[in-house]
């Protein structure tokens, strides 16, 4: 317990992971368009975005698994690319895709974990074995025989057991049933409380994870649309509905997203900036919004009818 407390303190002291002007091109296609991002030690970040927004590419660049076309990534001020001591501090536990070509389909779980362990100096083997038990996985099972949910469990085990100060999980709950998802959230929070490691979790099941995420990063079409404290973001977004004129009047000069009309009534999301208030005097309904709804409103913005 004492050593865990020390771990927590030293992890929280460590340097920030910073990406500046990250551009990534695959051939002629540019998928990341100059991303600036700062990840501080001792936080849980949520990375959300639609399919194809660039989440996996961004995580692979931040963990130096993929080269960038322009820009730089630094950890505590040092370049991460081709810097083994820096790379050992960052674990990107990728989604497993056991195809014939990748060669991992024939590996047993225990061998796959052994390979993963070799990348991380702080690898915790007893913890990995305990997690295998928690998820009721058999260490001698072949990767190629596992279901989608079981493959997700393996990526979770690698992420947690890596003990890397910066750990990225790319859709860790894909294919997991609700019990296993809740088990994962519990395990992640326990590990976070005990060690103060930084986690970045990308997910499409936004609502379940929302309360766990200290900060939310929304990626849209290769840009960072926003990075904000989750609680403040949720508090700043409200859903306003009622007669069109009254909604218009209440929201003059405010940022309005994803307006929807039915007959005379209008509903829209309003994002209040610091110090802004809604002029809610009339007959309009004001409701809080979930992170998932906020995300949907922000990302559907352009489809608004004129």
């Amino acid at each position, binding site marked *: 317990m004492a050593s865990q407390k020390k771990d927590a303190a030293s992890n929280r002291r460590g340097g920030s992971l910073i990406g500046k002007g990250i551009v990534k091109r695959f051939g002629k296609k540019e998928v990341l368009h100059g991303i600036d991002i700062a990840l501080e030690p001792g936080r849980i970040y949520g990375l959300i975005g639609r399919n194809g927004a660039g989440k996996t590419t961004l995580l692979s660049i931040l963990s130096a698994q993929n080269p960038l076309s322009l820009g730089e990534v630094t950890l505590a001020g040092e370049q991460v690319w081709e810097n083994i001591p820096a790379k050992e501090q960052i674990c990107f536990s990728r989604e497993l895709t056991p195809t014939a070509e990748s060669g991992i389909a024939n590996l047993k779980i225990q061998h796959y974990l052994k390979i993963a362990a070799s990348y991380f100096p702080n690898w915790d083997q007893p913890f990995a074995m305990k997690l295998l038990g928690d998820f009721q996985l058999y260490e001698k099972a072949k990767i190629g025989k596992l279901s989608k949910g079981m493959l997700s469990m393996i990526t979770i085990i690698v992420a947690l057991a890596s003990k890397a100060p910066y750990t990225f999980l790319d859709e860790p709950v894909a294919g997991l049933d609700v019990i296993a998802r809740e088990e994962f959230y519990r395990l992640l*929070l326990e590990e*976070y409380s005990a060690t103060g490691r930084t986690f970045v979790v990308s997910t499409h099941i936004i609502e379940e994870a929302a*309360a*766990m995420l200290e900060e939310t990063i929304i990626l849209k079409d290769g840009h960072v649309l926003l990075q904000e404290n989750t*609680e403040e973001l949720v508090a700043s977004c409200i859903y306003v509905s009622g007669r069109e004129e009254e909604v218009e009047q209440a929201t003059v000069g405010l940022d309005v997203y994803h307006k929807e009309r039915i007959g005379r009534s209008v509903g829209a999301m309003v994002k209040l900036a610091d110090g802004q208030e809604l002029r809610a005097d009339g007959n309009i309904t004001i409701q809080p919004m979930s992170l998932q709804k906020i995300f949907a409103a922000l990302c559907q913005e352009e489809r608004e009818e004129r």
Partner: protein
Amino acid sequence: MQEMLTQEKSIYLQIAEMIENDILREVLLEEEQAPSTNELARLYAINPATAAKGVNLLVDEGILYKKRGIGMFVTTGAKDKIRTKRRQSFYADYIERLLGEARSLGITKAELIRMIEEEGQEG
């Protein structure tokens, strides 16, 4: 502390309210230890920083106090403090909403008073 979280208000406020409810209902007694930030985080699957914000709100209001190195405890007199506070916000929280809904339904003040009195007789 087994209520479920809703989306109606900020999570840290709900955490503070649930601890208050437990104190009002004597699930949690004065001078007893309150659940820790990490316990709350695990139970509700929320970020420990959010749980801490809720707990600290109660510390600021003198409902919980910190024993160094041990944890958070319920202050003597916390129950009265919560009652006083909730009485003060009762009008804004309940009466205003009741009156607003009654107005849009065309229920008169006299009718409203009669409903309350009848309820009193039955109970």
